[in-house]
């Protein structure tokens, strides 16, 4: 196979392996501390659940300086007897390679898709390299629906802390569900299973120089699979606990890339999402159980302060595309005290839709537009934290379900104004 991005030694390795049944990709960047555990879990999963399948583990690295790739090459399971009843028949190959292209998770995935296509694999999975809660069962849950049930795309379903994944809960999940009509709870979960056919389809798209090559890859993979009628399901993986993220990671840059990628996909598939009237559940695999989660520290005062600052300074920018009622509400909420601080779901859904329409109409520089959403998002998150302070996981799920229904109801506004 001729690839523009794979290095010569990888091409040689591919020629040596020739074909494989399963490929598990692990994108990484300075994850030496955790990637050993992830590789071992994947290795154990492949050995335990797919002993007769030819499998390859690919570490696609973004130029780590902490020896991440050495850890991957050295990660082996010393005592197979403790985890396996029977010995593996087929070997597991491990390849660690730096990826090429613009730095980001998307470029790492592109290398994984390329190798998957070159090896003509039947099923693939990708898992994050900073996971602390991954178990061998994750490999089974992400791969088996593809190999045995003919699904093309397997999304994760986790138990997360009620305040975790707030961009997912307040924007990406409700919007994706309302747009494309599938109730996929973690559209940007980061750990996915997919068929070799879908990996080849992804490679036909020319998106590798856009935000998709960065944080946008997850929503792009999910939306592309759904919008192109690939068979989609989700698997319950348990708790998602990972290494502390880089504290310097910029929230507005993250929001810009993820929300921007979602809005870009709306541009690509208007013919698909405009026809969708309601959402439906997707097949779900895995045994669901309650898990204990670590407590999370949230500074509500500071969040409200950031929201107020945003309203004070940026309302004139927003007034160019949000309705008068929403602008009036935001001006009023500037004076609300912490106890009465609340952003209703209807207001939030209209704000997100107004930003989508403003982005579609290109009324201003896109980066400015999307980054100006940050204080409003922080305000909505503060409101959510206040509302769910005493709620258990089930009540929080109900609250998110309620928000999703509001998004589905407001979709007509989006359809009408998307010209």
């Amino acid at each position: 196979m001729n690839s523009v991005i794979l290095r010569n030694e990888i091409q040689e390795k591919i020629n040596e392996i020739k074909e494989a049944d399963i490929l598990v990709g692990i994108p990484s960047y300075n994850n030496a501390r955790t990637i050993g555990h992830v590789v071992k879990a994947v290795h154990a999963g492949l050995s335990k659940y797919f002993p007769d399948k030819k499998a390859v583990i690919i570490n696609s690295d973004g130029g780590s300086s902490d020896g991440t790739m050495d850890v991957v090459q050295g990660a082996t399971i010393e005592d197979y007897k403790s985890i396996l009843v029977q010995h593996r028949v087929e070997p597991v190959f491990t390849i660690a390679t730096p990826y090429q292209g613009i730095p980001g998770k998307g470029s790492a995935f592109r290398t994984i898709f390329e190798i998957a296509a070159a090896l003509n694999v039947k099923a693939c999975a990708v898992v994050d390299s900073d996971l602390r809660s991954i178990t061998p069962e994750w490999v089974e849950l992400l791969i088996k629906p593809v190999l045995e049930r003919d699904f093309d795309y397997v999304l994760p379903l986790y138990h997360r802390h009620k305040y975790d994944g707030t961009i997912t809960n307040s924007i990406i999940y409700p919007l994706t569900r309302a747009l494309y009509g599938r109730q996929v709870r973690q559209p940007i979960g980061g750990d996915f299973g997919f068929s070799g056919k879908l990996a080849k389809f992804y490679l036909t798209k020319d998106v590798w120089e856009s935000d998709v090559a960065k944080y946008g890859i997850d929503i792009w993979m999910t939306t592309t699979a759904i919008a192109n009628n690939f068979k989609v399901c989700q698997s319950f993986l348990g708790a998602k606990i990972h290494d502390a993220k880089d504290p310097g990671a910029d929230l507005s840059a993250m929001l810009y890339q993820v929300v921007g990628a979602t809005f870009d996909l709306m541009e690509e598939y208007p013919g698909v999402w405009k026809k969708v009237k309601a959402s439906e559940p997707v097949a779900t695999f895995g045994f669901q159980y309650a898990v204990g989660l670590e407590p999370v520290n949230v500074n509500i005062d500071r969040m409200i302060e950031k929201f107020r600052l945003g309203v004070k300074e940026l309302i004139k920018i927003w007034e160019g595309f949000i309705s008068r009622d929403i602008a009036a509400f935001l001006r009023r909420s500037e004076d609300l005290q912490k106890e009465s601080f609340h952003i209703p779901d209807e207001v939030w859904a209209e704000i997100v839709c107004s930003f989508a329409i403003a982005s579609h109409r290109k009324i201003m520089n896109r980066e400015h537009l999307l980054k100006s959403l940050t204080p409003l998002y922080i305000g909505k998150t503060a409101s959510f934290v206040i509302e769910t302070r005493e709620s258990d996981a089930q009540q929080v799920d109900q609250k998110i379900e309620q928000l999703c229904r509001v998004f589905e109801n407001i979709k007509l506004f989006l359809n009408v104004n998307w010209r």
Partner: protein
Amino acid sequence: MDFFQKVIIEPSERLLESILQFLPNFFSALLILFLGILLGKVLKSVFARLFRAVGLDRFFERTGTAELMKKRGLKDPASVVLSKLVGWITVFIFAVAAMKTLEVPAVERILESFILYLPNFFVSLLILFLGYMLSNFFARAALIASVNAGLRMSGLIGKTVKFTVLVLAGTMALEQLGIGRETIVISFTILFGGVVLALSLALGLGGKDIAREFLEKKLRGEDKKDEFEHL
């Protein structure tokens, strides 16, 4: 009779002769002006279509210039305004050519010095225009970035960025026009240096406690971070 001949007839004949000599030039000038007006209208229409086709209006909207033009009373889209400008420049060039055709020495001298100065005028207009657009763009970028960083004086930061870019553009435009070249550069340097010095002093004297508190929090890790994951 001689007197009548010398005082009335001869000057009248000379005047008539001059008028007759001048008339062809005058009609040529009128024709050139008429052609200029006609070409101006054609070019205005052509450029309006061209500007619309290349998405100039969208570009102005995205940079926020369209909104500011509206606020300044310019309600037409940028493509219309600029195509009108192209039309008027065409008419102006033909008007100048028409005036040259008249072959009046005084007019020719004035025109010559005016025409030599004209490129400077247009370049400085362009500098001002670009400066205005860039000032809006950078001011908005600075405002949003500082709001997202939680800085209370975000508004001031945005305005300072806008003011700085505008002053820089103004200085460059005036320098292009050759108005007090050195005075302007020196004034700008003094003004800019003064502002930076004033800000440094204000920050150093007024904000030393805040800076200490901030550094203490950072170094001792007293500032509690939100621990939840956004994605």
